[in-house]
C-alpha cells in the first residue's frame, strides 16, 4: 500500500522534470563527430582527389555497396574513374574508412539521407566528392609516400631520404 503511494508520488514529481525528447526537425540534434553517417570522398590540401583507387574499401565492404574503376592521369597519379556507393545497401559500418590508406573515404555525422526514389540512393562520384580535406586537414598522401609521380620524384617526399643505389658499395 505504501509502495503504491510512493509510486504515485514519484510519478507526480515527474511533472516538473525536464522532458528528454529532442524535437527533431525543429531542433537539430548535436551528433558526435565520430558518428558514422553519410560517406564522403575528401580532397588533399592542394585540392586534388585523395582517392588512389586501391579497391581496399570495395574489398572490405561487407555488403559490397562500393564500386569503382581505377585510372591513371598523365602525371602517374591514380584516381577512380567512377566511384559509386549504393546507400540503400550501405550499413554504415565504417570498415571502408578504416581500410583506406589515404584518408580519402570518410564517414560524416550527416544522417538525413531520406529519399522517395530508391535509385536516388546510389551516389556517384560527383555526389560523394567534397571540396575539403574532411577530418584530416594537413594530410596529403602523395607528399608523404615514396611514389614517383609527375612533378615529384623518388626521395622528394616529406621525411624521405634520397634513394640508395643498392648496387653501389659506397656509403
Amino acid at each position: 500500500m505504501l509502495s503504491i503511494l510512493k509510486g504515485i508520488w514519484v510519478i507526480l514529481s515527474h511533472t516538473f522534470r525536464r522532458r528528454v525528447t529532442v524535437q527533431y526537425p525543429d531542433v537539430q540534434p548535436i551528433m558526435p563527430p565520430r558518428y558514422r553517417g553519410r560517406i564522403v570522398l575528401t580532397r588533399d590540401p592542394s585540392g586534388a582527389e585523395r582517392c588512389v583507387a586501391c579497391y581496399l574499401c570495395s574489398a572490405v565492404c561487407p555488403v559490397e555497396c562500393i564500386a569503382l574503376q581505377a585510372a591513371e592521369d598523365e602525371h602517374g597519379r591514380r584516381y577512380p574513374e567512377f566511384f559509386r556507393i549504393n546507400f540503400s545497401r550501405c550499413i554504415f559500418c565504417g570498415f571502408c574508412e578504416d581500410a583506406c590508406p589515404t584518408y580519402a573515404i570518410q564517414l560524416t555525422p550527416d544522417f538525413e539521407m531520406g529519399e522517395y526514389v530508391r535509385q536516388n540512393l546510389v551516389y556517384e562520384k560527383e555526389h560523394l566528392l567534397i571540396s575539403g580535406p574532411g577530418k584530416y586537414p594537413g594530410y596529403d598522401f602523395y607528399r608523404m609516400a615514396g611514389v614517383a609521380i609527375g612533378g615529384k620524384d623518388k626521395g622528394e617526399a616529406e621525411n624521405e631520404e634520397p634513394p640508395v643505389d643498392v648496387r653501389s658499395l659506397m656509403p
Partner: protein
Amino acid sequence: MSDVVLHLLTIVGVLAAALTIAAGLIWGERRLLALWQDRYGPNRVGPFGLLQVVADIIKIFTKEDWIPPFADRAVFVLAPGIVFAAGLMVFAILPVTPGIAVVRLNVGVLYFLAISSLGAYGVVLAGWSSSSKYSLLGGMRAAAQVLTYEVFMGLSLMGVVMIAGSFDLGRIVEAQKNLWFCVPQFFGLLVFFMAGLAEAHRSPFDLPESDSELVAGYHSEYSGMKFGMFFVGEYLSITVISALIATLFFGGWLGPVLPPVVWFMLKTFVFIGGFILMRATLPRPRYDQLMALGWKLLLPLTLLNLLITGAIVLAAR
C-alpha cells in the same frame, strides 16, 4: 415556452460538453501520460497539439468499418452503442450548478448505479458477439469484474446518502456546505474511486482489455467508428465518475470566488487527472488479485464504513 427552450439548451449544452471533454481526453490523456514519462506527447497538430483530436476523429471515421463474417451481426453492431449511450445517460443527472441539470431526480444515485451497470452489458455483448476467444475472455472478465465492484460501489455511496439524507445529487451537494464528504467519508471515497476505476475498465483494472494477454479484450474484433465508440465510451465513463466524485465527495459546485460551473469543472478535471495518474503509475494486477482485493479488502472496508457511519448518524439524531 421559454422553459422548454431552456431545457433543450441545457440538454444540448451538457451533451456537447460531455462529448467535447470525452473526445478531448484522447489528447489530454496522451499529453498527461507523456508529461509523467518525461516526453511531450502529441504536440504537432495545432496549438499544443490540440487539433490531434480532430485528426484522430477524421482518421477513425474514414477507417474501414469491418464486421467479421463469424460475428453475430446485430449484437455486434448494437454493443458499442450500448456502452456509448450508457455513458451519456448518466450525464443527465449531474448537477453542474444549482440551476443547470438536465433532470433533478430524487433517486439520482440509484439511477447512476443502474445505468452504469447497463454499460457492462455493452462490453459483455461485444465480447460474446465477436465469436473470438479473446473477446469472449475479455467479456467474461468484464462481467465478473463489474459485478464484483458494483456491489461495493453502491455500498460505498450509502455513507454519503446516509449523511445527506437523500439520493438526490443536488441535495447531497447542498449538504456539503459546511464540510465536504471526503472527510467523514474518506473510506467511502477511496472505495468509490477504486470501484470507479474498475467500472470504467481503466488501468490498472483494465483486465477486460489487458492488451498484453487478450490482444484488446472485448473489442479485439472491432474497427473504425465502432471501436471509436468503445474508446470514447471509456472516456465518457471516466468523466462521469470524476464528476460524481466531485459531486458526492468534494462539494460539487460549491467553492469560493469562482462561479459554480468553474468549480465543478475544475474538480472534475482534477479527478480525471487522478484517473490518468493511476494509469501512469500502477501495473495491472493478476485477475485473482483483482477479485481478492475486491471481496477480501474493499467489501469489508465498505461494510465497516457503512456500519460506523450508520452508528454515528443514528447517535447524532
